[in-house]
């Protein structure tokens, strides 16, 4: 990677990093608040339809035998998957001392938090009586009732809540030095706000010593955690006897898919963000190029997983499994499988071209396709497998109702609203780490890297 980096004439200083972060967090204009209001409207729309669903019951959804897990569980898996890239970029790449992570990891971590929060809503939305969701927790009660610790749904509760806590703490600890810096250069209510959040951080040798060790160990914990969480999510399906789901390949397959979709969403968010917030000097084409390489690599892993899944079914010659996979390809919803292959396996191959990897427009378009493809994959796996179960007389293809569609759109509004508000009030790029790796930033900046002018 280092060999590809060409020097440029841009000589960023530490103060330039601060100034850029400060500019991003400057009081917002009308356009920003209109965007936040639009996202809030979508979230409110989803909330309104969820309220209606709670009042009317799950009959307002497209649920029906045999498909009782559908869009909501698809959304749950999709958002959990999105969350994983944040941990990958911030924790796993930190352990490998990868330099290009510095400009994008805060954005990815933030995405992780809001994606997990969004994902955590969907199992509750999916419940007929959502006010009893706390029954999953092992809490003291007079009947000595406890959840079944052998159930993958209970594992899910522990995995997701641990993941949310770990990711939130990882993000918060990393933010402290940057918030302290903002405290020192802000005025008015913002200064008071950052003073409280910075906890009195001053960057002494003792503080950095403990910070570095705590941050490293948090990364060390987050790395196996990220592998375990999506494995646990995959076991929600793999431990069932349902054809199309009962497979040992699910854990690694889901983890690769999570990294794939998550990195694609980082591109989707960061490309417009660097343009709108004028972050081109900090988030360079070098960073996007490396992110695109991760997307390309995980796309190939995903393609291999699809092929292996089909091969195993053909090799076992189990008639029910064979029929399920036949329906997956040629059934009524075979077009969803087509979308999945097109978006996840074929379109990412364009990323082999260095020119495409250095074009923000192309990267943005490809990342959108990957997101569509990965949502389709989860839909095919969940709804598609349940539609064609072991009783052909029960077969019925699921079609989402308006409630499910609007709650899904609402979840995107909720996610984008939270992300946008965070980006305006807290540092969305890590000033500390960018300063630490400023030599790399200088080398990668400007228009000379890597192949042509940034579009």
């Amino acid at each position, binding site marked *: 990677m280092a060999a590809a980096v060409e020097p440029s004439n841009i000589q960023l*200083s*530490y*103060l330039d990093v*601060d100034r850029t972060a400060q500019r991003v967090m400057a009081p917002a204009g009308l356009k920003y608040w209109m965007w936040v209001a639009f996202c809030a409207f979508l979230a409110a729309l989803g909330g309104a339809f969820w309220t209606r669903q709670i009042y009317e019951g799950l009959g307002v959804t497209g649920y029906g035998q045999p498909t009782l897990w559908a869009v909501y569980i698809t959304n749950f898996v999709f958002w959990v998957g999105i969350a994983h890239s944040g941990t990958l970029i911030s924790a796993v790449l930190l352990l490998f001392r990868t330099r290009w992570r510095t400009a994008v990891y805060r954005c990815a971590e933030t995405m992780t938090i809001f994606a997990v929060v969004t994902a955590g809503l969907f199992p509750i939305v999916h419940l007929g009586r959502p006010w009893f969701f706390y029954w999953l927790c*092992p809490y003291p009660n007079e009947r*000595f*009732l*406890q959840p079944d*610790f*052998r159930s993958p749904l*209970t*594992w899910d509760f*522990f*995995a997701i*809540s*641990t993941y949310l*806590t*770990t990711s939130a*703490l*990882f993000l*918060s*600890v990393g933010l*402290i*030095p940057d918030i*302290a*810096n903002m405290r*020192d*250069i802000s005025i008015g209510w913002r200064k008071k706000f950052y003073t409280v959040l910075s*906890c*009195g*951080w*001053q*960057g*002494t*040798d*003792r*503080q*950095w*010593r*403990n*910070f*570095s*060790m*705590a941050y490293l*160990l*948090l990364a060390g*914990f987050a790395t*196996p*955690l990220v592998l*375990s969480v999506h494995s*646990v999510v995959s076991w929600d399906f793999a431990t069932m006897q349902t054809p199309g789901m009962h497979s040992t390949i699910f854990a690694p397959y889901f983890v690769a898919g999570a990294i794939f979709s998550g990195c694609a969403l980082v591109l989707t968010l960061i490309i417009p963000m660097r343009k709108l917030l004028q972050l081109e000097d900090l988030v360079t084409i070098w960073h996007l190029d490396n992110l695109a390489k991760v997307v390309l690599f995980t796309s190939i892993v995903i393609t291999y997983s699809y092929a292996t899944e089909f091969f195993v079914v053909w090799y076992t010659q189990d008639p029910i499994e064979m029929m399920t996979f036949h329906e997956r390809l040629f059934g009524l919803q075979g077009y969803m499988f087509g979308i999945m292959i097109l978006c996840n396996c074929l379109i990412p191959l364009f990323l082999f071209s260095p020119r495409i990897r250095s074009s923000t427009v192309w990267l943005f378009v490809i990342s959108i396709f990957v997101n569509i493809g990965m949502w389709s994959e989860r839909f095919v796996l969940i709804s598609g497998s349940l539609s064609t179960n072991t009783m052909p007389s029960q077969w019925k293809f699921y079609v989402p109702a308006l409630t499910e569609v609007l709650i899904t759109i609402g979840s995107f509004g909720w996610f984008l609203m939270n992300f946008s508000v965070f980006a305006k009030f807290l540092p969305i790029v890590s000033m*500390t*780490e960018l*300063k*630490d790796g400023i030599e790399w930033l200088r080398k990668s900046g400007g228009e000379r890297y890597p192949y042509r002018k940034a579009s």
Partner: protein
Amino acid sequence: MSGDIQLIGSFVTDDACAEAIEALHHAKIVAFHTFSPFPSEKIAEAVNEVRGWGRSPVRKFVMAGGFTGALTGLVVTVGTSWEWNINTGGRPIASITPYIVIIFELMILFGVLGAVSSFFFKSGLPAFDQSPGYRTRFGADRFGLVVQAAEGDAAKIEALMRDAGAEEVVREAA
């Protein structure tokens, strides 16, 4: 920290700051602390050499947290099974294999809580008073070295810091 005055040296690079720390060490002056805008390895190495610091004690708290979490997971899962011991299809009352997931997650959770709480505790956070000698630029683009010294040693220390490349040395009452 003891001394009549404090000298606040400001450095443009962490190399210069580390060099000044080494110079102070050779002059047997160890009553100092540093400020930096990012965790500089060069400064950390120089400070560790002077103070004889090993690795941060945070790791011990993390290990304790991890063990506590794993033990909690084991007690909660196995204890619940024994308390509510229904035989289902001849399966073992306490099935360790599925419980490993819970034990693992709690180990991570408690370990992480140990890391964060010990980081705050050992770093003296939250801090309500400013450390002596702190300047806002030390969080932005300069490296600070604050030395506590007797008035009579001030000139010698200032010379050491300037020789190492200090951009500015300011004297203040301690």
